[in-house]
């Protein structure tokens, strides 16, 4: 038998689960969330939107194809969504100690240990998911050897600060192509890759950066973790940008920030959408797209003025999935058109954004 260290997951409401450790052995705390995506744990773990969160995967067999290498392209890691594991910890049902894949360089366990992130297996993740579904997302902690710690709430702090960059970085700088400012609220690298692929120069700036001081053609507000209302500075900057009619594209947190900048409101969902199978209908049509999602907050459509229309709506629960200004070049989506992980169905939105800049 494999002798692995026992470890306990304790939820805010007192429920607990006993499992075994396969990652770093240290007690941690955060908001416990579940994702139902069946592939893409390297992408998910490095998604900065998971900052401060303990991620439970509902798909039980994890680690099967190991972890790829750190090759780079355009100065960006090819196989990850940021340069490190962002989630606080990982919870799975059945960890595959032996992996197999041509591009794997190490096991998931090795990677978690390297990055000092706990991982636990042997958990009834379906039971955990049902608790979160019924009682709502809640705080939790992973406790080793009775080394108890207190609960930490990532939504109570300005967590974006922890995942953004310090100084602006320019990618794919070439003459005669459009320049995009990307506000990094914890950006997934595939957003940048998608812009580069479309022959755009990308100026990636910190979340609170005053980008209006420079010349550019379009603005992208990235995804990111936490409560959007914590991003006061970003909301303020975006508000100024739309006053200048700068073509703007918000993704995920960016959707919420755009809504807030336009005077609307956001609210916390009971347990959020974290999966790769969310159907989003293009409002006014019967066209529906399968999208990747990772968010705990949503835009309250009713809070926006009549100048704004709903772009997409969730076909399952009717929540807002995007905004579009009726006359001006502003759009945003709650889901992830850049995917990674997940379906590539809505990548066309980057093209829509480019069209908007013309």
């Amino acid at each position: 038998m494999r002798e692995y260290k026992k470890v306990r997951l304790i939820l805010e409401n007192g429920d607990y689960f006993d499992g075994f450790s396969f990652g770093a052995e240290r007690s941690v705390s955060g908001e416990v969330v579940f994702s139902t995506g069946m592939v893409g744990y390297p992408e998910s773990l490095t998604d900065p939107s998971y900052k401060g969160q303990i991620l439970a995967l509902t798909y039980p067999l994890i680690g099967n194809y190991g972890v790829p290498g750190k090759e780079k392209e355009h100065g960006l890691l090819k196989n990850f969504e940021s340069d490190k594991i962002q989630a606080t910890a990982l919870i799975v049902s059945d960890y595959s100690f032996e992996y197999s894949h041509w591009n794997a360089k190490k096991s998931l366990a090795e990677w978690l240990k390297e990055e000092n992130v706990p991982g636990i297996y042997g958990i009834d993740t379906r039971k955990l998911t049902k608790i979160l579904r019924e009682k709502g997302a809640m705080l939790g902690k992973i406790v080793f050897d009775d080394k108890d710690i207190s609960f930490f709430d990532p939504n109570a702090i300005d967590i974006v600060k922890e995942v953004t960059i310090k100084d602006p970085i320019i990618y794919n700088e070439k003459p005669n192509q459009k320049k995009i400012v990307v506000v990094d609220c914890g950006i997934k690298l595939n957003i940048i890759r998608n812009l580069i692929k479309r022959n755009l120069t990308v100026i990636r700036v910190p979340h609170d950066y005053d980008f209006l001081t420079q010349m550019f053609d379009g603005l992208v507000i990235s995804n990111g973790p936490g409560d959007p209302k914590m991003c006061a500075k970003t909301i303020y900057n975006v508000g100024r940008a739309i006053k200048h009619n700068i073509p703007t594209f918000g993704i995920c947190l960016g959707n919420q920030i755009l809504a807030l900048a336009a005077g609307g409101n956001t609210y916390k969902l009971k347990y959020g959408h974290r999966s790769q199978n969310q159907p989003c209908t293009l409002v006014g049509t019967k066209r529906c797209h399968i999208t990747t999602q990772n968010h705990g907050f949503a835009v309250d459509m009713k809070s926006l003025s009549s100048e704004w229309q709903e772009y997409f709506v969730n076909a399952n629960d009717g929540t807002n999935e995007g905004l579009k200004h009726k006359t001006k070049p502003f759009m945003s989506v709650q889901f992830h058109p850049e995917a990674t992980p997940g379906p590539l169905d809505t990548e066309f939105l980057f093209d829509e954004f480019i069209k908007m800049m013309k």
Partner: protein
Amino acid sequence: MEEPKLNKPKKVLVLGSGSLKIGQAGEFDYSGSQCLKALKEEGIQTVLINPNIATIQTSEGMADKIYLLPVTSYFVEKVIEKEKPDGIMLAFGGQTALNCGVELHDSGIFEKYKVKVLGTQIDAIKDTEDRELFVKTLNEINLKTPESKAANSVEESLAIAKKLGYPVMIRVAYALGGAGSGVASDEQELLEKSKRAFAYSNQVLVEKYLGGWKEIEYEVVRDSYDNCITVCNMENFDPMGIHTGESIVVAPSQTLTNSEYHKLREIAIKVIRHLGIVGECNIQYALDPYSEDYRIIEVNARLSRSSALASKATGYPLAFVAAKLALGYSLIELENKITKVTKSCFEPALDYIVIKMPRWDLQKFKRVSLEIGSEMKSVGEVMAIGRKFEEVVQKAIRMLNINLHGLVANNIQFNDMEKELKKPTDKRILAIVEALKKGISIEKIHDLTKIDLWFLHKIKNVVDTEKELSQFGISDAPRELMKQAKQQGFSDFQIAKILFKNDRNKMTLKKLEVRKLRKKYGILPVVKQIDTLAAEYPAKTNYLYLTYNGDEDDINFDMSVNRSAISDHAQKLKIFDNKKSVIVLGSGAYRIGSSVEFDWCCVNSVLALAKLGYETIMINYNPETVSTDYDVCDRLYFDELSFERVLDIYEKENPEGVIISMGGQIPNNLAMKLHKQDVRILGTSPLSIDSAEDRHKFSKLLDELKIDQPEWTEAKSIEEADKFAAKAGYPVLIRPSYVLSGAAMSVAAGRKELDQYLQKAVEVSKEHPVVISKFITNAKEIEIDAVAQNGELIIYAISEHIENAGVHSGDATMVLPPQYTYHETIRKIKDISKRIAKSLSITGPFNIQFIAKENQIKVIECNLRASRSFPFVSKVTKHNFIDLATKSMLGLEVKGKYNTMDLDYVGVKAPQFSFSRLHGADPVLSVEMASTGEVGCLGDDLGEAFLKSLFSVGFSIPKKNILLSTGPIKNKAYLLESVKKLAEMNFTIYATEGTAKFLEENGIKAGLLHWPLEKKEPNAMTYLQERKIEIVINIPKSYEEEEITNDYLIRRKAVDFNIPLLTNAQIAKLFVDSIHSKKMEDLEIKSWEEY
């Protein structure tokens, strides 16, 4: 939501798939039934054509009109002419329906009668079916297909292969289950395979062979608004080179990264859009194991075996949705039938792993090759659900019901390990286990098998656990290790076998000891739901499995706390509280001898229970069934039909009782074991079942009742057997006890044969001695299917076999009501059945088989359960025997007058064989069952019903040339009148030497064709190969021929070249008589309702 702009047809014709055969099995009963339900919900009138009488879809009320007629263009056109439907569904009846649809379209029939093809259009179907068009179409959107070229002749295929370089793969257009395909490593091999392939089709595709690449499938759905989803992806455990129907398959894929998964998904969507498919399609890929390079192998523009699997694996009702989409709905307008709160426009998220394993029955055939490859040979499949790969693979192996207990703790040996790994057979996964035990490295096994290392490592985990467990005994096995074993899918039996060091005495007690121990340790399985969304939304439907990888049940069982107290009382009074539940045990994997007919029985039992207000619980693990549909029962346990698992579920559910008499032999065999654990079995007492199953007890009973039976003995050694046979006289019938479909059953004409066969039979069942009985020749076989209550006969139907006794009842052509049987015989049979029913106090369904010779009647078999022919007799007599049986088991009043014998029409059930798929197998009828399916047709007289049924299994009226080779003189004489009729009808008759001579002596002109082994022209082989013969009548000389004979070569050649073959004298005679007296126009186009 805005009103959908639908152009709904008023009346839709649905084409079924006909008889079950290798490559096209029960999955199309599922898809057709779902299609009919979807149409019905829309208020659309439905007309179904399907001669498969054992299916749910051909049951009363499923379609408004049911035609038990062949799915061929002739009959479909006739039905269209009569019914005038305005729409037709082609995607729900497999390759049969699709091919028939293309033919009708091309001959302008749809246009002529203004029938609209619903869903995917013919052009798109052609783009996927015609290999050259397929490659061209995908090239248009820059997608990769294997380097290949279509050949229209054998010569052309050789030239293409030369260019591509060997090895090459050849594929046949419009073929099901890879028929005629194969890998050729050199020119000689290609020549042979190419010739055979052209027997099926005018076009063959020669492609670069991608052996060793990963094989991945996606199920894709598209609506007419261009919304596309992939419902499921699947990964084959066995890499490219083994047909996906022959592969172990997991869902979702296990070794694909996000990038690979979504790249292939994206391509699937591009393909479905480009082809313009509306509804469902399946796409198969080869994926390079060392890069993201891929090839698109195949697209099936219809519901398929894979889509049935995907539907059961995910809970997504693919067939139902596909039917709605064909009517013009969009995916967002359709609700998710499982959650009932979300929409059909989503992709299921699984929080479990599913494995499919093929079920082969190769040992049933003589001379068949055991190797598996690019052609399908498996006859069924099982699906296991769990939360670990180790768990599902072990579950699945047990589900195959071939005496294996999982990956380990089996008694199986391999001689040449390397060969077993390299040249896959049906047992390869066990060879991997043995190799690991012998210390062969995982890398070496990977080299030989090309199976991904990930799967091999998981198998090794099980081998390791077995090793660890073997260091302990029942007294000191540690809890954590026991738990690990249970989580890895070890059964109590496996653990018992390991802990008790292979001491096989009293295994039942030992496994109960293990059960006790693990319960003491608190190691119990939990019930989990399949809800399509990984618990993200609450599911309303109870689609369940059990696992040890979890802490709590998804279902609240507290409601049932007080059930047992009530039910004991209720049972005594024979009154049941109507709010109580009943478990119906399903039939397991389709295999030879147990097929869709038992699923029909199970489903009808469940429907009867539901109508009576019971909560219905089904246990079954066959993804090709209707019984495992989400809308059939209140709770479906997609799990093992084992003693351990049924008891687990019983303990959780605490139902009113368990019905074990509907699912064939698997549940029947559990009767006694469950009874001993105080499980409430409904219907006939398990003690009576045992009395019928145990030869000694049953024989004693017959003697007591003064009912005749063939002389028999139970032999424990070859000497004993020889002694009996010498005394009773040859031929003798040899069979092991407690088996279905006559596995290892055989007839020996002399001592040499007897000794030879005993070896085989003894191997089959060591614990049970061999039963040898006198084999009665030239006798008729008659069956009774009946229902009794408290020993009183309630309803019965008597059917006769056309073939003389000696042909397994599953392979026999059955006639109801009997046309040739004496009244006296029928009266006696009824009387005997009544007496048996009374003495065994039967309550529920039963079947007795008789042998009759000149009014002498002997009982040869008695089953106290529903038999294979229950759907046939129910549909022919129009009395639902299962409904009555279920009510009778619940103690309800069922007495009445049921007319089952005085009918104005005749029903004929005919077998479907799949010999063409089983290379080398001798296509003869024997006491071993060989057919994979059946059809049942009605007619105003025997000839009409018989011809319809024969046309339904692939025969047609020959136009010109017939080859005769009629065996022993007795048969020659028997068939003489028939041959005269053939001559009268101006057929050109060819015959082999003896037959030709005999015919000449009797004044019939016959062209002589030399025997195959004579190598002289004109030779029978040449004529067959050149397709100069349209039908072959070859009657074998003896019951069991071992060596390769001339006869065998002729039969095999006929099968390989798809030439209809008759091997039974009685059938041949009836066929000739029927075509002599009837023309095609004489076959009435009447629906089931019109009889």
